[in-house]
């Protein structure tokens, strides 16, 4: 009975709560009971808010009993990545430097979740400052993949995807700078959407690569992704890069979700896909066949600059990171070294003690790329390559509705397998990075399993601000397959 409850999707759950058929408090208690049982195995959360959440659930039940209107996520237990500022609990970014940081304001998406009457369960683990592809770079704890606890959940939003897959919440928020929502979603067999750059406010999202970062939903179904977008999308005066709704109106992403896109034209990039493991390639080809059987036209295209995406990304992202992370100075907030003799050492020792290795590496790489004498060769060059990558997308979308490709060249890898070789880890981001450089939306949906019963994700990329059609296309596949209904053995 309780398992049935935990396996419901957000929409069913919310409607059941709003209609008084299900008590919000029953749901919240069930989630925390599950967290007590499985969180010691999965390690998805940095902080949980049991008392807070149960009180909020009771408040929602009272409102419903009193006949009051409730929000779109009324009583739905939701987890948020610990890169989002909250006035309750710490906001750590899984870094020792922010371990005791208490944000003085809520991120805009947090305010939106609260106004939609969501019950925020806790804050999830991640690679430190969202830098990584396995959540192994967390400075605070380890998260494992619910499908195989000897493997990584992916990253950097690995805590969020593990929590959703492990039924430790019903949906979660993540952030995606180079694939950090989509790749862990594919590793954990859930739906992960990176919206168009500018669609969701970044206010209160701790910055990593500001021209690439975007917040998005991690859910078990495409409909839940649409529901979450209905809550979080839209212009925010506090984020000057969030887009004006006159320019790109936000729509009701659920309204037409079940209407298939007519005369769908899908592009594939055969040469680029060849780099994936054969089982991944087969799963992607089978998924595309499902669309073909639905009447979609499949065209083969070339995107000659995609092969340069990783190179451009690791310069652009680290350059932006080196600037963004200069704020951790041991003066205003965050860790301050007790061994500093003078003010320079306050900076250099606090940062040395507070940051983990990957963060240091990226700060150094970015600083180097921006330094005098190297700026043109690295940073400027990367911005030009970025421009070429974006034109590949512009050209491609003149001739198709969406592009399909793998999310990751492999399924979830073993814990420790890539930690000694940062470049090897970077190369695993090959399929996800381009969407961030071009600013376009992309989703990962479950599309099969490999021989080790590890989930595989199908990535669908669409033109900027085309989330409504993107989700409809994703839904066409989901409606005809059962992959999204499969559960990890521990569930």
């Amino acid at each position, binding site marked *: 009975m309780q398992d049935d409850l935990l396996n419901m999707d957000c929409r069913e759950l919310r409607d059941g709560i709003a209609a008084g058929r299900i008590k919000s408090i029953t749901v919240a208690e069930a989630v925390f009971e599950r967290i007590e049982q499985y969180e010691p195995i999965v390690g998805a959360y940095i902080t949980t808010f049991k008392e807070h959440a149960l009180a909020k659930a009771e408040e929602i039940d009272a409102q419903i009993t009193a006949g009051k209107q409730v929000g779109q996520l009324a009583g739905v237990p939701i987890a948020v990545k610990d890169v989002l500022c909250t006035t309750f609990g710490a906001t750590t970014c899984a870094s020792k430097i922010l371990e*005791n*940081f*208490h944000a*003085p304001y809520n991120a805009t998406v947090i305010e939106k979740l609260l106004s939609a009457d969501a019950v925020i369960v806790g804050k999830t683990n991640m690679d430190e400052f969202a830098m990584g592809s396995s959540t192994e770079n967390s400075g605070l704890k380890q998260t494992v993949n619910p499908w195989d606890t000897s493997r990584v959940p992916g990253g950097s939003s690995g805590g969020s995807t593990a929590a959703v897959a492990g039924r430790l919440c019903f949906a979660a928020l993540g952030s995606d700078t180079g694939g950090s929502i989509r790749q862990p979603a594919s590793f954990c067999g859930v739906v992960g959407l990176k919206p168009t*750059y*500018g669609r969701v406010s970044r206010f209160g999202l701790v910055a990593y690569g500001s*021209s690439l970062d975007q917040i998005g939903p991690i859910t078990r179904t495409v409909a839940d992704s649409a529901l979450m977008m209905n809550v979080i999308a839209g212009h925010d*005066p506090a984020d*000057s*890069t969030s*887009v*004006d709704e006159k320019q790109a109106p936000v729509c009701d992403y659920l309204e037409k979700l079940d209407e298939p896109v007519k005369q769908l034209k899908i592009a594939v990039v055969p040469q680029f896909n060849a780099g994936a493991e054969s089982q991944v390639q087969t799963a992607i080809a089978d998924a595309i066949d499902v669309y073909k059987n639905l009447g979609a036209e499949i065209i083969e295209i070339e995107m000659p*600059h995609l*092969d*340069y995406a990783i*190179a*451009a990304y*690791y*310069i652009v992202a680290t350059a932006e990171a080196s600037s963004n992370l*200069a704020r951790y100075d*041991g*003066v*205003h*907030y965050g860790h*301050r070294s007790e061994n500093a*003799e*003078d*003010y*320079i*050492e*306050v900076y*250099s*020792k606090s*940062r*040395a003690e507070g*940051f983990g*290795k990957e963060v*240091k*590496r990226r*700060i*150094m*790489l970015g*600083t*180097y790329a921006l*330094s005098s004498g190297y700026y043109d060769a690295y940073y*400027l*060059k*990367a*911005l*030009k*390559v*970025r*421009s*070429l990558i974006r034109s590949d997308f512009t050209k491609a979308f003149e001739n198709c509705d969406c592009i399909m490709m793998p999310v990751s060249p492999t399924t979830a890898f073993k814990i420790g397998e890539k930690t000694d070789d*940062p*470049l090897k880890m*970077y190369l695993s981001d090959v399929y996800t990075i381009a969407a961030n450089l*071009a*600013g376009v939306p992309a989703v990962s949906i479950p599309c099969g399993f490999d021989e080790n019963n590890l989930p595989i994700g199908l990535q669908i990329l669409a033109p*900027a601000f085309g989330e409504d059609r993107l989700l409809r296309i994703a839904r066409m596949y989901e409606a005809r397959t059962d992959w999204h209904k499969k559960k990890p053995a521990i569930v």
Partner: protein
Amino acid sequence: MAKKIDQTQVRKVALLSRLELTEAEVAEFTGQLSAILEYVEKMNELDTDDVQPLAHCLPISNCFRADCVKESLGTEKTLGNAPQRDGEFFKVPKIIDSV
């Protein structure tokens, strides 16, 4: 082939980044950053002479708001996370040497 970046350069970048590194870290980062930079040079296969750099994907610039007074955080909240404070101030070690 010569390394893309040597230990002296790594030390200089660490100084610019205000990161105190151990000798072991200098050695480790020199090797890793060299490998990454070598990979990144792949970009040089592309002729980009006539390409405009793209720093940002959105066609928006100069987002202004009305110049009016709004509520701000206030002293207590602003200083709430300070590692060390002295009344209404952030406390830091002495910056100017005494004469």
